[in-house]
């Protein structure tokens, strides 16, 4: 069996996915990006190979994506993360028409066609407001681990209204709410609602069409899923593999290449 791989070098984490000809995920791995982006890409790919008990030669084509896609030195080509998230989301949820991708440093809204092609997109990458960084700032201000944020926020009953836009100012606003005796749960629920409101604005700019699939690392946060669903008034598709969606899309593009290059060769052999 032939394999293809996608490596998604994100600002915070690097993800690698290896798929077989059947388009199923054969192996995957996730590592922290850190300062050495080239090494992170190689490390993620090697870890995925090890996890799938595969040899590098068995992977015929590698596509790099994410902000560090040109640092995937062993990759055969690069595809933007917008195309990859669209492709991955439509693969997982074929009815997807809108994708919201929330990562460590940016949030993207992507509208896709029935075949997974990009119709339009909009992104928030100039300003940290409404991105995963906003959650990171709240987590550090309140001294809570990132993966506990969602569960804590869901215990909130009376969310505070976060009025600041900027992540830097939100950090002091969070502390001022704490100083006013508000519960951490209620503050965090307010923080999630404020990010949901900004993301919803981004989604409306590309046109909101059902079904909506939520991808990226932040999609694993249950409070972010819930507040965004409440804000949009609809259910979101969320996969267990949401943070691998970009890498999966890249792997699907890689497999296209493998199959396309094989077709004429097979025809010639006959």
């Amino acid at each position, binding site marked *: 069996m032939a394999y293809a791989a996608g490596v998604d070098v994100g600002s915070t984490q690097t993800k690698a996915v290896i798929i077989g000809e059947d388009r199923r995920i054969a192996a995957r791995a996730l590592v922290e990006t850190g300062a050495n982006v080239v090494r992170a890409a190689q490390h993620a790919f090697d870890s995925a190979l090890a996890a799938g008990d595969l040899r590098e030669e068995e992977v015929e084509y590698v596509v790099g994506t994410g902000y560090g896609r040109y640092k995937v030195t062993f990759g055969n080509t690069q595809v933007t993360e917008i195309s990859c998230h669209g492709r991955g989301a439509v693969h997982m949820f074929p009815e997807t028409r809108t994708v919201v991708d929330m990562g460590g*440093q940016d949030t993207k809204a992507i509208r896709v066609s029935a075949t997974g092609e990009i119709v339009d997109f909009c992104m928030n990458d100039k300003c940290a407001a409404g991105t995963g960084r906003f959650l990171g700032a709240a987590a550090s201000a309140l001294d809570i681990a990132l993966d506990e944020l969602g569960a804590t926020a869901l215990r909130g009953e009376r969310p505070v209204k976060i009025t600041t*836009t*900027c992540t830097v100012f939100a950090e002091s606003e969070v502390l001022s709410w704490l*100083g006013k005796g508000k519960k951490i749960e209620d503050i965090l629920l307010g923080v999630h609602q404020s990010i949901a409101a900004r993301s919803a604005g981004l989604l409306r700019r590309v046109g909101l069409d059902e079904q909506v699939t939520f991808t990226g690392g932040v999609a694993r946060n249950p409070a972010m899923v819930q507040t965004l669903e409440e804000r949009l008034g609809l259910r979101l598709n969320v996969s267990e593999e949401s943070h691998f969606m970009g890498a999966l899309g890249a792997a699907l593009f890689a497999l296209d290449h493998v199959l396309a290059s094989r077709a004429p060769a097979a025809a010639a052999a006959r």
Partner: protein
Amino acid sequence: MMTYTAGIDSGSTYTKVVIADVAGNIKGYALEPTGFRLNAVADAALGRALAESGLAREELGYIVATGFGRYQVEFADVQVTDLTAAARGANHFFPGTRTILDVGGQTMKAIRIGAKAKVESFRLNDKCAAGTGAFLEKTARYMGYSTGEIGPLVATSKESVPISGVCAVFAESEVINQLSQGSAPADIMQGAIVSLVGRSVQLMKRVRMEPEFTLVGGILRFERMIDVVRHELASEVNVPPGELVQFTAALGAALLGQRRLQRLHEQELPASA
């Protein structure tokens, strides 16, 4: 005689108090970090300013609050906007002032004023940290320097490293990249100042600035910031002396208090005569 007035500027980062006499002279001033208990901090700062001036609280005829926290200052007699207060204060120091640039910890304002310190046009940014002093503080912190060290650090800069200044959060990766490429922290700091001043000039253009220019606010304590503004505007700029640059709005509030006090006396005089 209750002829003294106090101006309290409850800012996002610091609370500043100035006590003025009837002739507009500064009798005392003090500053406290604002924190979250705005009224208590304003009270403490007023206490310190009074102690410095050797006056008793009973000698204050009028207390005027300004700044974002002005409605939290429960003991103030009246509130005025920070624009009016900054305009009055800048006009006191430099009567020829037509445009004021006020850069604080969490706000940046450009104000165009008329001959009698009347506000004619203003623009402000309090939504995005990249256009405020918080940008410099964050940049310093990413490199391991405190706010107090910004001035001495940047004074040693020889050239400016380009810093985009679009977002104070994303500046972190920019700063780390620059450090790993061997740029000096002082030059990165200078780059952050250049980028902040770029935003200031944009804001000033939007109020259709006219000379004379007067710079006020806590961030103008940094000599380099003043140099860069002077360079970018290609014009001389007025800067209130020493620490007072940070107390301009508080002084303006105290002076507006003097005017109210005078009016009160004028109304009372005929009645008592």
